[in-house]
């Protein structure tokens, strides 16, 4: 199996794992997770992030911040799959006595910060990136934001800060699925031209298909050499709910897990996708 096939297979497995977690819990942000499955799989399984699952606080690790903390199910699934903690923890997602719930918790191995209140991850990531520069450390800091999250003013305060300080060890990834909780981003408060906004804040910007592993890996290649002198924004065009046709691009599927017949349909589709890959 070549690298891309391996990643595609891994993404299919992760989608199924997330769906099972959320159906069991009867809650969880399935669609928000599904838009960034390929991004997280590429980061953790595509040799992009440096990490040691047996030593989550390894000082030389790259920092990954999931600022859109509602997509915690996919990060938890990926972290468990990488060995940061036992996969059995996923079964108690949102259950009494479980280790974690809907929004991301900093006390889970492999998780850098608590998120769930949107708009804070980029500022914290900028602080980490600045600290790396001051301490002459080589790690990179990646922050994954939702596009709806970019409505928050604090995102732009942090973007301005990072651009001003030319933090070329900082990468912002915008999961551009075009939806926030109740409506399309462009209906409630227009974000476009999003790439120009980031560029005007002093960032290099690349726009990619966020479900294409070759495009994702290409966007993240060569970052270690620090050839650029600006932070990098990767705007990843994605589909919210990607992988389950009746959930794709539907505002009403935000923040909920399918039940009963719909749950069976969703799982059936994901299993089929995995089988087709095999």
């Amino acid at each position, binding site marked *: 199996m070549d690298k891309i096939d391996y990643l595609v297979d891994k993404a299919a497995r992760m989608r199924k794992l997330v769906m099972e977690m959320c159906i069991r819990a009867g809650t969880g942000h399935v669609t928000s997770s599904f838009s960034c499955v390929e991004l997280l799989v590429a980061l953790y399984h595509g040799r992009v992030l440096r990490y040691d699952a047996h030593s989550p606080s390894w000082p030389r690790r790259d920092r990954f911040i999931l600022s859109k903390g509602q997509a915690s199910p996919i990060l938890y699934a990926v972290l468990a799959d990488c060995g940061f903690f036992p996969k059995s923890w996923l079964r108690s997602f949102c259950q009494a006595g479980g280790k974690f719930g809907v929004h991301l918790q900093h006390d889970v191995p492999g998780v850098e910060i*608590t998120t769930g209140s949107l708009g804070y991850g980029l500022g914290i990531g900028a602080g980490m990136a*600045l600290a790396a520069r001051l301490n002459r450390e080589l790690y990179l800091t990646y922050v994954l934001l939702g596009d709806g999250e970019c409505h928050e003013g604090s995102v732009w305060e942090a973007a301005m800060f990072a651009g001003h300080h030319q933090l070329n060890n900082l990468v912002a990834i915008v999961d551009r699925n075009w939806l926030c909780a109740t409506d399309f981003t462009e209906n409630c408060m227009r974000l476009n031209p999003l790439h120009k906004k980031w560029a005007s804040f002093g960032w290099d910007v690349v726009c990619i298909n966020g479900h294409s592993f070759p495009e994702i890996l290409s966007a993240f290649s060569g970052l270690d050499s620090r050839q650029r002198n600006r932070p990098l924004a990767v705007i990843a065009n994605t589909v919210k709910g990607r992988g389950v046709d009746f959930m794709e691009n539907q505002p009403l599927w935000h923040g909920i897990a399918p039940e009963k017949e719909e749950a069976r349909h969703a799982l059936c589709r994901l299993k089929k996708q995995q089988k087709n890959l095999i």
Partner: protein
Amino acid sequence: MKSQTMRDAFFDRLYELALSDRRIMVVAADMGAPSLDKFRRDLAQQFINIGIAEEAMVTVAVGLALSGKKVYTYAIMPFATLRCFEALKVNVSLMNVPVTIVGVGAGFSYDDSGPTHHATEDLSVMRVLPNFVIYNPSDSFLAARCADMSYNLSVPCYVRLDRKVLPTVRTKAFDIAAGYRIISSAKDGYLLATGNMVHQAVKIAGILSKKSIDVGVIDIFRIKPINEEILVDISSKVAWLATLEEHLLAGGFGSSVAEVLVDRRISTPLKRIGLAEKYYYEYGGRGYIRSVCHLTPEIVAMEIRKWLRD
């Protein structure tokens, strides 16, 4: 001791610490001070002026702190706290990150600036945040010690500094770790004061003593955690207590004292003196504003006498 603002006393001491501990960083929201000029000049890598962006001030500070820095944020008090309150909750309090929030302008310090710049609600909300230690010094000596105490903490801290040059409080030697200092002892009652109101309390005690009411003054400069033992101790020795703050009564310093007394089943009468729930568009100096909101020594002394009679 030379007259110095609390701000300069605090940052002068922090500068000394920062010379030997390069982990110390100040992230300021477009605020300057003579004492901060030294940071800019000598310790350029330890000072960031982040501009007028308080949420970024907090989040960048947290990112630095999570990467091993000892970080101090600095802004005018309402903006250092209320403006970015939820950022403080989620990123500092909830994750228990040892960042020190330094606010300048306690109470009516910005007496020419109106209620946008008055800090009369911050204490009520900041003291509900878990993990935070809160200092409210009453003079420059204590402000400098707050730099040391916050430096030695491994939890979040909030330091409230007055903007004005306040006189140095004269007291006997005291244990700074106790979080209070007894300025004068008495047999009838105690005024428990904090921050700038400690100086008013001394004047109030003087007025009451002329009316044959023997009143002591205690400066409580660590508001959280408040030293419960001293409250229990003095409650058993006098007939009444009064708290004094240039802050809203709702949830403020007096409330924190009242909570201790209630929980400890202490029935010593307590009078809370502070601000009513309103804003003051008043100018003409702090003394004038205090006269409007009934916080001058003469008015407070009269109020206490009336309360004692009732």
